[in-house]
C-alpha cells in the first residue's frame, strides 16, 4: 500500500491534480489573508465592473464586482473554502457509511447482504439531485446541512462499488485462514479484507469529492445551499445569471472555478486508479 502510494506520486496525472488542489486548498485555508476585500462588502457605487484588464475595469477589483458591488475575486476565494469543506467532509462521511455497510454486506452475505443491497437499490431509485433538494428543504440551509444531504445521498455509491470488491476479496482463502486462526469477524474485516479494498476506496473518495463540489454548486444555485451569508460558487452563478448580458464575466468566473476543481479531483481519481489498482497497474494501461 505504501509502495503503491509512493508509486502514484510519480504519476504525472496525480502530480498535476495535487498541484491544482494544493492551490485551491491554499485559497480555502488562507482566504482571510489573501482575499483583497471582505466577500460581503458591498460597494454600490461600482456594481458590475468588469475585470481590471477589460475596458472600464477597476484596479481595485481585479476580477470585477457583482450586481451588489462585491469583489468577485474575494468571493471566489471564499467560495473555494465552502467548496473544499463540502468536498472533504461530505465525501468522507459518505465513505464511512458506504464502506462500513459494504463490508458488512459483502463479508457476511446472505440475509444481511440482501437487506443492505435492497436498501441501496431503493435509495438509488431516487434521482440524486431531487433527493438532495428534498433533504435540503427538510433540513434547512447551512454548510453542515449541505454536507449531511450529500452524505445521505451518496453513501450508496460507495456501498455498491465496494460491496462487489469485498465479495471478491472475501472469497480468497486467506480470509478463511484468518478465521481459522481465531480472528474475530471484526478483526478479519479490518485486517484482512479492508487493506485489499482500500486502494479502490481512495480512488472513489477522490471522485466523490468532484461530485460533492458539483452538488454543492447545484444546491447553492437554487438557493438551498450554504445560505446567503456565505459565498459559494453556485450562488455566484445564480446571481450573475440575471445580468449575463451586461457582465458575462460574473457568470464565467465561478463556472471556471468549478470546472478547474472538478477536473483536478477527477484527474486525481483517474491517476490513483491507474497506479493503485493492481489489475490496471500490471498491464500498464
Amino acid at each position: 500500500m505504501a509502495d503503491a502510494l509512493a508509486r502514484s506520486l510519480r504519476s504525472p496525472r496525480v502530480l498535476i491534480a495535487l498541484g491544482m488542489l494544493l492551490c485551491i486548498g491554499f485559497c480555502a485555508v488562507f482566504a482571510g489573508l489573501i482575499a483583497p476585500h471582505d466577500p460581503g462588502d458591498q460597494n454600490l457605487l461600482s456594481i458590475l465592473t468588469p475585470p481590471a484588464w477589460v475596458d472600464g475595469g477597476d484596479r481595485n477589483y481585479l476580477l470585477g464586482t457583482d450586481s451588489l458591488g462585491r469583489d468577485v475575486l474575494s468571493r471566489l476565494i471564499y467560495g473555494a473554502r465552502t467548496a473544499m469543506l463540502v468536498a472533504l467532509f461530505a465525501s468522507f462521511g459518505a465513505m464511512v457509511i458506504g464502506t462500513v455497510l459494504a463490508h458488512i454486506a459483502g463479508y457476511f452475505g446472505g440475509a444481511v447482504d440482501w437487506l443492505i443491497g435492497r436498501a441501496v437499490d431503493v435509495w438509488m431509485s431516487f434521482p440524486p439531485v431531487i433527493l438532495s433538494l428534498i433533504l435540503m428543504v427538510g433540513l434547512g440551509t447551512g454548510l453542515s446541512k449541505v454536507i449531511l444531504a450529500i452524505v445521505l445521498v451518496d453513501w450508496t455509491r460507495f456501498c455498491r462499488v465496494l460491496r462487489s470488491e469485498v465479495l471478491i476479496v472475501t472469497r480468497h482463502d486467506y480470509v478463511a485462514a484468518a478465521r481459522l486462526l481465531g480472528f474475530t469477524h471484526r478483526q478479519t474485516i479490518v485486517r484482512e479484507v479492508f487493506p485489499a479494498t482500500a486502494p479502490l476506496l481512495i480512488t472513489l473518495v477522490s471522485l466523490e469529492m468532484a461530485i460533492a463540489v458539483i452538488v454543492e454548486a447545484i444546491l447553492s444555485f437554487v438557493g438551498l445551499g450554504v445560505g446567503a451569508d456565505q459565498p459559494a460558487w453556485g450562488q455566484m452563478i445564480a446571481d450573475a445569471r440575471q445580468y449575463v448580458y451586461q457582465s458575462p464575466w460574473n457568470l464565467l468566473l465561478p463556472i471556471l472555478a468549478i470546472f478547474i476543481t472538478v477536473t483536478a479531483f477527477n484527474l486525481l481519481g483517474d491517476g490513483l486508479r491507474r497506479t493503485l489498482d493492481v489489475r490496471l497497474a500490471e498491464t500498464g494501461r
Partner: protein
Amino acid sequence: MALALQAKNLTVSARIDGALVPAVRALSFDLEPGRILGLVGESGAGKSMVGRAIAQLLPAGFSITSGALLFEGEDVAGMPPRRRRALLGRAIAFIPQAPMTSLNPVLTVGAQFDEHLARFGAASRRARRDRAVAMLTAAKLPHAAGLLGQYPHQLSGGMCQRVLIALAFSTDPRLVVADEPTTALDVTTHPPILTLIADMQRQHGTAVIFITHDLRLAAQLCDQVTVMYAGRAVESGPARAVLATPAHPYTRCLQLANPSLRAERRALYVMPEQMPSLRQLRDLVGCHFAPRCPLVTDECRRGEPPDIAVATGHRAACIRTAATAGIAAAVRDDVAVRAGEQPLLQVVGLQKIYTVGAGPFGGGRAVAAVKRASFSIAENEFVALVGESGSGKSTIAKLLVGIEQPTAGRIVFAGEDLAATRNRAQRAASVQMVFQDPQSALNPRRRVASIVTQIMEAGSRHADWDQRLARTKDLLAEVGLSADFATRLPGQLSGGQRQRINIARALCALPRLLVADEIVSGLDVSIQAQLLNLLARLRAELDFAMLFISHDLSVVRHLCSRVLVMYDGEIVEQGPVAAVFDNPQHPHTRALISSVPPDEPQAPWAALKA
C-alpha cells in the same frame, strides 16, 4: 515423406530488462506423420512454447529469435498471416488444457461445430451437421445428435474435452498439438480421454505433439519423447527407451521424485531448490541443471554440455550420462512413523446439506454434499481422503475446521465435541488447515513474518513483535526456508515456497490435527517431493496427525497409512493403504487405481486400450 513438424535449433527468447533471455534454446526435433512426440517437463521448462510458437500466440515480449519451425517444410514463423490462418484449425489443430473455458459458453456445441466446419468449406449445413454427428459419435459421446443442441455448461469437463477432440480432428488435420489435455480433468477420465486421442490419431494418421509433465503417461502414449529443462531439450529419443534407461540425471531424478503406486514404497529423491526462472537463467553459466544435479562436477559449471548420443536416436545433453543409472534416493525415509493408538478425531454420521438457489425467503433445493461419513484419525496418524471433484472431500475439510457447520453428525476431537466448542482460540490451536491454492491462501499485503505468526494476533492476544519474529525464525527453519524470508511478500515467492509458508502458518500454534486440502496438487513433481518429505519430517518432530485430501493415489500411498475413498458424498471404502490399494473392493476405488499409468515404461496400461 515430408516431416509433419520439424524444429531446427528453435530459440524462443523473452525480453527481460532490455536483454534477450532464451526461454527455449536450440530445440530440435523431427516429427514424422502419424507419430506422437511427447514434450515432457515441469512448469517453466518451455514445453508449451512450441505449441504457442506454431499458433503465433507467444506471450507478450517473447519471440522466435533464431532457428526455424517447419510444418511440412514450410516455416511457420515466416509464413504470411493469410497462409497461417488457412493452416491453423484445418491442417494444424489444438487440444487445449482447460476444456471448460475453451468452448464458447453462449453457443451450443452444434453451433460451434458448424462455425468451425463452415470456415473450412464444408458445403451445406446438412453435410456439416452429419460430419459433426459422426465426429461426436467417434469421440464416444452418447446421443451425439442431441448433444449438438446443448451448451458447454451442461456438459462435464470430460465431455467438453471429448467435444474439443472431436472438433480438432473433424478437419482431418495433419498435426495436432495437445497441451496437457487431461491435467484439468478428474483422474478417472484420463485413460478414456487419452485412449480417444490415440484412437483418433491412428485413424486419421495425424502427427501429435503431446505436452505433459507426467513421465509415466508419456511413456505409455508417445513414440518419441523430448524431456525439457529450463528451455533446453536435455534428453530425447524413443519414449520407452528414454524412460526405461534415462541418460540425463534430470530425467532420472524426476522419476525418482515421483512416488510409485504399485512398486514397494521407497524414499523419494529430492532435488534441491527449483528450476531457474528466466531472470536467473540470464546469469547462469554452464549446465543449467548443475545447481540441482547430484552428479555435478566443476566441468559442468564451466560450459554448456554438448548433445551426446547414448544409443541409436537417444541423445542426452550431459557429460556424465554414464553415472546417471547410479543415482538413488537416500535410504533414510522419515515417512514410516508409527501412528499412535489413541483416537484423536472421531467423526460419526457427518452430514452436510446445502440449499441451492434459495432466495431470502427460502425455497431452493437441497443438495447433499456429504451424505453420511464416519471415520477416525489416531494421534500422529496420516489419513488420506481421496475422491474426484464433487465427491465432497473438500466439504469434509471445511466441516472439520469449522468453516461450515454440519447438518447432522458429530465431530469428536480428543474426547470433546467440536461443534460444542465455543472457544474459537482453543479450536484454532488444536485443528488447523493448509489450503490448496497457496496464492489465494496468503494475504499479498502481509509479510512472511506477519503471515506465519498471524495466530499470535488473533482474538485478544497481542504478542509483541520481538516474540513474533523469534517464532518466525523457528518456523522458517522448520519448513526449510532461510531466516531472510521473514521480510518478503508472498508475491516474491515461488509456488513451493508459498506452500511452505502456508504449512508454517498452520503449524505456528502446534495443532494436533492438520487438515491439508490438495496441498501438493498444483506443484511440480520435484517440488512435490520436497514437500512430502517435509511433511514426514515435521510429523516426526512436531507430532501431529493429518487428514490429507488428495486425488493423487501415488502420493497418498507414499505419505499416509490409512485411506478413505469418497464417492458421491459417501465414504465407500476405508482401510490401511496397503490393503485398499492391493485389493480394492469398491468399483470406484478400482477405477481410481487403474487410472494411474504403470511405473515401468514397458508394462501395459490396462486402462489405456481401444
